């Protein structure tokens, strides 16, 4: 079994239901996110469009975070999930330096690294990840990539024909197990959109000046 994720960006409407469900399910502290939805506005008025991209851990097959972790706190589960043992983590932040997707954060409460685990605890109880359940338009598709009959495999096959299935930063050779359908450069390449103060909707697009409780 190799679990994977797919987000159909044509369906996503940026409601952030997945983000909130993840926060609640995993008790993610303030200023930290396992899953977030990024809004990028494209075009010039009146020809404008708002795009939404849910971003979470890619559970790479060749995960740089797992490789650099000095104590195996980050480790693979048999189902392909890259899991984290917070009791073992020493907080060196090597994983944060290694992850090309910026998917790992330093938990300010425990002072250890943390990230999306595809809700490994729910999967162990044969439940879907919280974000999948919360999505009102079924844009989040989760399942076994090794099973050609699974919903995710079928979805990939259906959209593969027109080259519509993508991963983030394939050049990093991390073999992500998180796919996107309907995405473009603006969705998946962080360098393809500007981050300018004053153009944000509700909050400042700033940087964290403090990593964890250190």
């Amino acid at each position, binding site marked *: 079994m190799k679990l994977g994720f797919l987000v159909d960006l044509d369906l996503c409407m940026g409601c952030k239901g997945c983000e909130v469900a993840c926060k609640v399910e995993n008790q993610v502290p303030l*200023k930290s*996110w396992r899953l*977030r939805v*990024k*809004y*990028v*506005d*494209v*075009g*010039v008025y009146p020809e404008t469009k*708002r795009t939404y991209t849910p*971003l979470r851990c890619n559970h790479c097959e060749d995960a*740089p975070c797992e*490789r*650099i*972790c*000095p*104590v*195996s706190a980050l480790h693979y589960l048999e189902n392909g999930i890259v899991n984290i043992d917070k009791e*073992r*983590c*020493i*907080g*060196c*932040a*090597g994983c*944060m*330096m*290694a*992850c*090309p*997707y*910026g998917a790992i*954060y*330093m938990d300010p409460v425990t002072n*250890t690294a943390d990230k999306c685990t595809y809700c490994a605890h729910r999967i162990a109880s044969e439940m879907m990840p919280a974000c999948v359940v919360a999505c009102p338009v079924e844009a989040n598709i989760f399942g076994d990539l090794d099973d050609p009959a699974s919903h995710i495999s079928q979805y990939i096959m259906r959209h593969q024909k027109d080259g519509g299935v993508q991963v983030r930063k394939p050049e*990093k050779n*991390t073999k992500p197990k998180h796919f996107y359908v309907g995405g473009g*450069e*603006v969705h998946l390449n*962080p*360098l*393809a*959109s*500007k*981050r*300018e103060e004053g*153009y*944000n*909707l*509700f*909050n400042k*697009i700033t*940087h*964290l*000046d403090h*990593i*964890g*409780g*250190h």
Partner: protein
Amino acid sequence: MVEHTVAATNAIVTLDVPIPQVIWGWMITLNMWAKSIGTGVIFVGAYLLARYSKEVGKDVKFWMPVISFVFLNIFLLFTLLDLHQPFRMWHIFAHPHWTSAITVGAWLATLFTGVVFLMLIIALKEPLLKHKRKLPKFLVAILESKWLNDELYNKLLKAAVVLAIPVTMYTATIMGEATARELWQTPTELIQMLLAALLTGSAVFLIIGYKWSYEVKRDLAIILGASAFLSFVIYMGEYYFGHMKAEEVEAILAYVKDSGPYHVMFWAGQWIAFIIPMVLVYLSLKSRSSSLLLLASVSAIVGLYITKHVWLIIPQLLPLS
């Protein structure tokens, strides 16, 4: 602004969470800088002992382990302090993960520090035994034991030189394992780490050996000048040609290019660490001036910290997602 967007798309992030920026800061710079000195004095000290043993052997045998041990401890202390869970450091030894350069480095650095500590004990044996009465009995017994002798020191030095190579270079592999930071490529960083050790090692001995003959200092000056030159060439290669490799490298280098926030700091580092020492070494070789070499050494040691810091910070400024 390192991001790019075409007028047709005019893509602007309008809602996102605050993202982490500098994860590894000045403590890691200090870590690398102190490690360069701690290992560099071993490389250069071993060379001096091999070539000028009669002339400077006594001084080198004393100062080499003293300085190495002090700076290795600064390196280890700040490595520990930079951890968010420093009291779990022992996990590296109890649950080692050997694909991680952090693990390999921690083990080798610990072994290396142990070897240098034994060398330090031998180096301090004579001066300490002069104050025998003030020392605890067990320490006197240890210091007076027969196996703490020059023969053991020489054997330990060989081991120290061998261990110093991976210890000084392993950080480059950590940087290489940081897949997110495209600027750092392991082969280049390996050479930069080695050159940094030779630069600081020779600089430290030029300061300690201010009163040594100019013949010895000339050798040290050549090591200093050559290390500065090679390191500078590699940085310039990255600076001017790095953008050809990848979009990310181009975006990162924009932070040190003309209008980048680290432009001044980058060039300050290059001048203080490499250009000024190179010029001073050249002038000194022409005039046989020791004062110029002293100035070059201090400049190189200070400048290396600035250079390392800029190179550590800039890849972390890039948005990853």
